[in-house]
């Protein structure tokens, strides 16, 4: 199942390490030590094995990356005790020697290696390499086992009801979490190794037969094209493979929730799991997905209406300050008389124009938010207290901003927290300032122009060939069941149209009726 895909560049870089193993053991050991620059965490241990004819056997692994207790139990112990009974003969071929040795080692996989390149990558991924003196081949055994975090609560996408597990930094754990949800033989994974130096393992996961083959092929192509020295986070992969770089909108969904990813795979999307980060990518991703929370599907379907609330919040988060600016500086006639009077009374004596006032407040709020995220948790509270005082009361009392402006900024801020996905809220935050500027120079007209331009931009985006704004534009009637509202699950009989073009039916029964009620 594991197919290592190596880019051309890797071969060039490793050319000097790409020689095959030597026959003479000390030469091998010398080369390994040189190759790794005598690193302290390299561990080499030699044994003498054999009953009559004795041969020198060495095991090589990296401390910390490999599971030492497992090595002791499955490799060292058999080699020290049982393997003494091995009967070697001088005229044995290399295959025979290895075959005999293999019978004693009790790790689950054991593969032959012939080159130093294989050797190094095995050592550096936590495997143990077994070398035998006199032959040009070695064995590698899977003994990976490094310290990792346990499966924990999701921290960025929490729900009230729903699974409480999140991905971890360990790739294997992550694939397990998905496999435990979809126990289908059609769930295929493909392994890629990206990063000249980091050699990060990236796995692509999809449901064969449901996922669009073109999309899978596209993912392969784009992953293969990546040439970089290191990858630490799926965000870096995302930047390499997304369709459009210069857009505030995310065209790839990232989630740390196995249920979100599994549901996406079930819809025919492709998951990209990167080793070392709990954030798994899902492509193709559409605009509407970023406003959907997994909880929408776990709560009653009539509560799916809450999604409407999110669309409203998106609009408010985007437009509220600009609308305030437009109304108070250009279109005062839009306000009811009494409201106008009370706003005017508050603005009496405020030295700044509405645009500057809004900009000041918005920016200081963004400061607060950014500080709140980056601060050590113990200091965070102090920041929020100071912020509330400065932004709220003091600014109004000092007469620098009007009270209404504080209300507008707070509503905007709260509306911005509603998004289930953080990427989208960053996009909205950024664009809000553009809208404010347009509103300050052209009023409502500016807002409309800016909004149409934004829609044009959104509609021109694609995520792995799928129009970003579908199923709104292009409008797909069948998919509306899970776009702005959520229909009862038994009504959503088909998978999203543009995502999986084959095997569309989800094959569900119609409304289940309790027995005895007809």
């Amino acid at each position, binding site marked *: 199942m594991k197919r290592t895909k190596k880019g051309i560049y890797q071969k060039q870089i490793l050319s000097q390490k790409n020689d095959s193993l030597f026959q003479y053991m000390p030469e091998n050991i010398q080369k390994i030590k040189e190759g790794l620059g005598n690193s302290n965490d390299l561990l080499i241990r030699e044994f003498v094995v054999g009953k009559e004819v004795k041969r020198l056997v060495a095991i090589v692994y990296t401390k910390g990356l490999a599971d030492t207790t497992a090595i002791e139990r499955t490799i060292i112990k058999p080699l020290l005790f049982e393997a003494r009974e091995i009967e070697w003969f001088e005229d044995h071929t290399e295959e025979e020697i290895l075959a005999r040795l293999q019978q004693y080692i009790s790790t689950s996989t054991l593969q032959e290696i012939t080159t130093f390149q294989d050797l190094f990558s095995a050592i550096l991924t936590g495997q143990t390499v077994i070398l035998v003196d006199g032959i040009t081949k070695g064995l590698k055994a899977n003994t990976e086992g490094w310290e990792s975090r346990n499966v924990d609560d999701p921290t960025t996408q929490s729900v009230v009801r729903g699974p409480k597990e999140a991905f971890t930094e360990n790739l294997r754990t992550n694939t397990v979490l998905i496999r435990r949800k979809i126990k289908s033989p059609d769930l295929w994974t493909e392994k890629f190794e990206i990063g000249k130096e980091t050699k990060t393992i990236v796995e692509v996961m999809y449901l064969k037969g449901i996922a669009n083959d073109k999309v899978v092929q596209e993912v392969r192509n784009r992953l293969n094209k990546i040439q970089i020295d290191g990858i630490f986070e799926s965000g870096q992969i995302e930047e390499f493979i997304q369709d459009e770089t210069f857009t505030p909108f995310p065209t790839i969904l990232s989630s740390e929730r196995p249920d979100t990813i599994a549901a996406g795979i079930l819809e025919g999307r492709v998951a990209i799991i990167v080793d070392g980060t709990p954030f798994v990518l899902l492509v193709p991703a559409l605009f509407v997905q970023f406003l959907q929370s997994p909880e929408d599907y776990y709560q009653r379907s009539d509560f799916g209406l809450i999604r409407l609330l999110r669309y409203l919040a998106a609009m408010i988060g985007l437009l509220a300050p600009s609308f305030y600016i437009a109304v108070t500086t250009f279109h005062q006639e839009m306000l009811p*008389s009494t409201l106008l009077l009370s*706003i005017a009374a508050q603005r*009496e*004596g405020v030295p700044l124009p509405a645009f500057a006032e809004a900009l000041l407040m918005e920016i200081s709020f963004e400061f607060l938010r950014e500080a709140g995220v980056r601060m050590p948790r113990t200091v965070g509270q102090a920041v929020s207290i100071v912020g509330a005082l400065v932004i709220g009361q003091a600014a109004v009392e000092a007469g620098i901003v009007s009270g209404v402006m504080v209300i507008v900024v707070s509503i905007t801020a709260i509306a911005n927290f509603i998004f289930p996905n953080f990427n989208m809220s960053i996009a909205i935050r950024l664009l809000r300032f553009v809208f404010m500027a347009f509103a300050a*120079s052209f009023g409502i007209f500016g807002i409309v122009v800016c909004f149409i331009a934004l829609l044009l931009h959104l509609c021109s985006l694609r995520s792995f060939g799928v129009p970003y704004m579908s199923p709104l534009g292009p409008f797909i009637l069948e998919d509306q069941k899970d776009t702005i509202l959520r229909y009862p699950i038994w009504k959503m009989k088909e998978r999203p149209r543009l995502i999986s073009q084959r095997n569309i039916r989800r094959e569900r029964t119609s409304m289940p009726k309790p027995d005895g009620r007809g």
Partner: protein
Amino acid sequence: MKMKRVLFILILTVFCLTASSCWSRRELNELAIVVGFGIDKVGDQYQVSLQMVNPSEVVTQGEGTGRTPVIVYKEKGKTVFEIIRRLTTLTPRKAFFSHMQIMVISEEVAREGIKKALDFFWRDHEIRFDFFIVVSRKSKAEDVLNVLTKLERIPSRKLFTSLETAERYWAPVNAATLDKFVRTLLAEGIAPTLTGISIEGDVKEGGERENTEDVSREVSLKYKGIAVFKEDRLVGWLNEMESKGKNYILDNVNSTVGSVRCPHEEKHFTIEVIRAKAKVIGKVENGKPAIYIDQVSEANLSEIQCSKLDLSQPRTIKMIESATEQRVKNILQSTIYAAQKKYKTDFLGFGEAIRQADPEYWSKNKQNWQQEFVKLPVHINVDVNVKHTGKVSNSFIKEMEDSKSEKE
């Protein structure tokens, strides 16, 4: 693909260049919100008075600074807009008209014709059509705007809301917005009307701040009568009864109250009209135009002083109904008399009714409609239905009188 990005940046730069000037921007605290507008005649010039709000005095979380909630500025000139712009030499801020509540036209201006003064309001983009126009009766528009009011801090707001409520619950006013007024002005076969306003009490004292503080001080504004126009010139005033009739005929009555004399005694009962529906139907029979007015109303008995009426008898309701019908008929007739004989102006829309009934006849005769109108036969049919008699049936007055007569 890069095209989009580049264009986006291009748009942004352009906007940056334009944004620096922000031509049409006006901050809220640079505006003087005009709520009342008055037009007077001084010599052969117009005098415009603007009532502007002082927002911080109107909306007070803490205590006010003791200044008046509104300020009135006035200026003279040839045309309205010229005066308004000249006012900027007086006012600290630019006047903003979108929140105008009321426009007061002095009787003098109205008698001369008001169309000249109105074009500005029709044309300017800031003016909306939701303020009311009234005619100040026997006083200058400026004085009307100068009066400070008690319950509502902004006098113009008071005028607006009280006219709105009066129209809803008391028939003899006529809340006319600008578009309504111009529509009747333009329409063939109907003349416009406006409500009159007058100052009760001493004009001088009205503007002083004490007027809002002293409970007993009696300077206040009151709607009184309806001004009748011939084309755009005021020709006379309708009294309360005629005003009521006018609103009955034009189907403007939402709800009103009227007292009717009891049959057989010098006491009164009060009828509250809940719903009223009137239809003015024009007919041309044998080349002769005639008007038929159908007035149907639904009413409640809301007050009764009569002692001889027994409300438990269905017959009595009939009596009350016919008495009321007679009363309404009288009201209508007095209005029609005022229209045809007193002022000779067709503010009841009879011409419009004839036109709708018979456009051909109308187009032939609209030239001499004035003569036709005066001798136009009008047939009135009134139908009043009394529904409820309030919480009780017979009044305690009657019970008292009955028991008295029993004792005697």
